[in-house]
């Protein structure tokens, strides 16, 4: 597990257009600069938001990667829930302690309240 480097890559991707360009044009070279497991590398390349959430990526970093991938807000929230259903509880970071709160409100995928 190298959650630190997964988050570092996504942090730099979010804030630096030059890193985004390399991510599009020379991805292997860019990713080789980070200490990533195969699972982490695949999750990033595939844009597997659910698995990245389960790995422990902070939502304040992850939501921007989701936006970069073109996901709508509700799709992002659902991807995280799907990740937990598919891969199990969050493995590292702050959210290992996160309990599923009773949702008094949840928009559907079309954004209806």
């Amino acid at each position: 597990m190298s959650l630190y480097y997964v988050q570092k890559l996504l942090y730099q991707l979010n804030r630096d257009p030059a890193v985004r360009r390399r991510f599009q044009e020379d991805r292997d070279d860019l990713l080789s600069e980070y200490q990533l497991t195969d699972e982490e590398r695949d999750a990033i390349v595939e844009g597997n938001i659910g698995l990245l959430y389960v790995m422990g990526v902070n939502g304040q970093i992850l939501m921007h990667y989701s936006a970069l991938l073109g996901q709508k807000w509700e799709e992002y929230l659902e991807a995280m829930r799907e990740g937990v259903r598919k891969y199990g509880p969050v493995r590292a970071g702050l959210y290992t302690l996160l309990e599923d709160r009773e949702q008094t409100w949840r928009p559907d995928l079309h954004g209806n309240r």
Partner: protein
Amino acid sequence: MSVVFAGVCSHAPGITGRADRADPAVRDAFYAKLDEMRQRLEASRPDALIVVAAEHFANFFMNNMPAYCMGMAESYEGPIEDEKWLGIERTRVPGNAGLSRRIIEAMLHDIDLAYAEEWKFDHGIMVPLHFLTPRYDLPVIPVNINCQGPPLTPLARAYEFGRALRRACDAQPERIAIVGTGGISHWPATPNSGVINEEWDREFLRRFLANDREALISYTDAETFRDAGQGGFEIRTFIAIAGATEGKTGELLFYAPIPIFAVGCTVATMAV
């Protein structure tokens, strides 16, 4: 001169980015109170605005994470996020490097404060500025308190930070406004996004508005995480404002949970 204005407000990106999705009546009432805060801020005729914020991995990462940092640049750029996603156009915000430097030099007697001559604003500062200085014509000095990547500064230190900020500002000739911005309870960008613990928020606001230091700093991070989510760690920004206005109390202009904004939307001023 001195501190001429102090207040707090929310900064969630949904406030602008998902504006069209909220109940218009509640949203517009919230916006109206933000505008009232703007009017009060302008009426105080500030020379500069210090925004005590809790940024979200726009400038600071776990390779070198300051507990406290103040900007010391001539200008700042923001938002760092996609303009359409946030609903705020990218712009350059004026700073005041000389004033920053004098405040930092004064504060270092009390607080080990980091400084940054380069800083890109994220929604944590741009959303408040969008409402409070919509023409971006007031010099801004950003402050970040790390509320994202634990270990975090203790709440008592956040109050001390506010006290030190006040002492430093009072020693300057400029008229200075201070605005703290953070969530109260919220679970931003997680599957619990949209959950708001209104009861917890109202009790926190009661303590804040009364400027009850002992009650404000009595929360443990474990309690806050349990009851108010990881977004609750941002109470540090409010507590810093309480420290900067020690002995004074506040006025709540607005509070209402707005789930699509993912936070209990808050506008308040503190006597200075």
